[in-house]
């Protein structure tokens, strides 16, 4: 156990006594646990062996937090640097509606909600977050309230060998509705360890749209956890767009705990150079008549790698479950690598489940079709790759973020070499 992540270090972080006690308890629990290794199935294919926690310390530096990347004015914006809140802006209408967006410790239910969703989906790094998160952020949408425009949280990390522990808890009340855009960035060149935890709690007949945009710097390690609990007749649409990081892992647990709960889960990702993007998903059908539909589509270029492992779990009581899981990968070039491992664990007979996964290069027929209309080869490939990801972009819960995401995809595409097929060689 690293001394920089000791119980004493946890005790030194500011907060009300209940939060300090909670952090110290987590740090003490951590001292009993070992850092995971690739021998653990959950960490298979990951470069976890390269992580030396002793070289990191909780970040203390501050800097500028990035702005929201949206085509509309957000309903509220919380900007965080190195896990600490630096500004909170909330539309007056939200305040009137009783919507809370701010520091979790400032809300009466703060102590009760922190960890209430993530508790039984914990691993070493969620515990590390429990022990060292400085400023948990809370979004609370009361019963029956609809928030029309997205609520935006931005997180920026900076400082070499700093570790940052962002925490976001979203609670959507009965028959309430909201969308949340959660953006992560960090400085290029800084070796940063980011271990964010997001808890999403959707009460009966509530509707939550959540979109995570990950544009971390090229030397950042991210080990992220997102846990959702979806109650009776409630719907979650949770998406991830992952572009950055040296090693960026996102684990998403979606628990459909109430009858008729529904989850739409999407991701688009684009790795290049030496990036590794690692996704672990759990579609956990606990209650009857629950449905989930997962679509993860990614592109690997350069020497990048992607890992997708997904599990659909249908519990004994979850009769009438419909669960789908699709992971498709485009591999640009021989040095890129994508692994896709779908799994099913079904404990009830009255279910419909399917999974599909593919890893393939750009389709010859699609390229030929575009070329036969006079589209230069490299441009044809760019169109096909952008179109491949656009299928996910159009399904995301925050439509006003779509144009920004298309620009991010275009930037990634512009950095790739399609020249071997292009104008230069065709004369």
């Amino acid at each position: 156990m690293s001394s920089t992540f000791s119980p004493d270090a946890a005790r030194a972080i500011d907060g009300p006594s209940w939060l300090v006690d909670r952090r110290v308890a987590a740090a003490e629990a951590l001292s009993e646990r070992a850092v995971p290794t690739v021998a653990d199935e959950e960490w298979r294919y990951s470069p976890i062996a390269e992580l030396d926690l002793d070289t990191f310390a909780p970040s203390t530096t501050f800097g500028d937090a990035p702005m929201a990347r949206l085509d509309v004015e957000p309903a509220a914006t919380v900007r965080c640097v190195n896990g600490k809140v630096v500004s909170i802006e909330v539309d007056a209408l939200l305040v009137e509606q009783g919507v809370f967006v701010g520091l979790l410790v400032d809300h009466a239910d703060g102590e009760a909600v922190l960890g209430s969703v993530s508790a039984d989906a914990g691993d070493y790094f969620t515990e590390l977050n429990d022990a060292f998160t400085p400023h948990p952020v809370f979004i609370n949408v009361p019963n029956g309230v609809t928030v029309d425009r997205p609520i935006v949280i931005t997180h920026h990390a900076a400082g070499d060998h700093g570790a940052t522990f962002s925490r976001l808890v979203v609670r959507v009340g009965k028959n309430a509705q909201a969308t949340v855009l959660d953006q992560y960035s960090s400085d290029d060149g800084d070796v940063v360890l980011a271990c964010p935890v997001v808890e999403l709690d959707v009460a009966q007949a509530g509707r939550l749209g959540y979109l995570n945009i990950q544009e971390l710097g090229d030397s950042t390690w991210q080990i992220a956890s997102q846990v959702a609990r979806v109650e009776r007749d409630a719907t979650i649409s949770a998406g991830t767009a992952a572009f950055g990081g040296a090693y960026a892992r996102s684990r998403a647990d979606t628990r459909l705990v109430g009858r008729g709960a529904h989850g739409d889960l999407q991701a688009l990702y684009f790795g290049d150079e030496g990036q590794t993007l690692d996704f672990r998903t759990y579609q956990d059908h606990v209650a009857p008549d629950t449905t989930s539909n997962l679509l993860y589509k990614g592109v690997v270029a350069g020497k990048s790698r992607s890992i997708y492992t997904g599990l659909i779990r249908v519990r004994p009581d979850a009769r009438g479950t419909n669960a789908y899981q699709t992971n498709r990968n485009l591999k640009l070039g021989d040095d890129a690598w994508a692994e896709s491992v779908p799994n099913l664990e079904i404990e009830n007979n009255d279910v419909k489940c399917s999974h599909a996964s593919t890893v393939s290069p750009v389709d010859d027929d699609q390229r030929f079709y575009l070329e036969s209309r006079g589209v230069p080869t490299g441009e044809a490939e760019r169109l096909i790759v952008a179109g491949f990801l656009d299928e996910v972009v159009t399904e995301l819960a925050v439509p006003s973020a779509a144009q920004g995401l298309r620009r991010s995809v275009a930037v990634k595409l512009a950095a790739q070499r399609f020249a071997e097929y292009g104008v230069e060689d065709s004369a």
Partner: protein
Amino acid sequence: MSELIIEGLCASVEGKEILKGVDLVVKSGEVAAVMGPNGSGKSTLSHVIAGRPGYEVTGGSVRIDDLELLDLPTWKRAEAGLFLAMQYPTEVPGVALRDLLRASARTSDDPEEIESRMQAEAERIGFGAQFLERPLNVDLSGGEKKRNETLQLGVLRPAFAILDELDSGLDVDALRIVSARIEQATEEDGLGVLAITHYSRLFDELRPDTVHVFADGRIRESGGPRLATELEETGYERWVQPAAATKPSPALSDDPFADPLG
């Protein structure tokens, strides 16, 4: 005035010879019909001219005037004025018609001009505006796909168009509209057409100047428009597998002229 000149074109797939010396000339404003039985290699001819991967050209030449197309990548052939309307247009998820037309080397860099041509062509062939927003060929019916091909032909204004079974999947009304639009292009823009088909119904509106019977990998007979009518009545028996009766039966199921790439 230009010419699409096909000379002694031979091509094979996985070592099997499919095109066995095709000779054909199409002039600007002309419609040349290439008719033949299923499995004769007609589609292979269109694919090889356009440069589809998977075929090995073993001899011959395809030129627009003095420009040798076989040396060029597919998109350069299109830039030079060749267009292929496919029998089974490929679905390209997430790519809109507009994106394709803007990226084409055949169109100007002015998005407004492309937009107005697209709208005008859609109106001419009764292609609903809603289809312009769809990803290419995704969730389109057979007829909508062929209208989409025709619309692209109208916007890209090629010098020569190869129509590969344009009539397949089209109902009578759509066939009339689409073939009339192409006939107009031959008159208005001097489009030269190489129309590959099994049936003569395509030629009710689109008037062929020459008709060529294609079988066993080459042109077997050429004539005027009346040949198309004759073929409709008599069929292709004269040109199909003259030695079939003497072959042992297992060979019959293994059609040597089938296009392995469909």
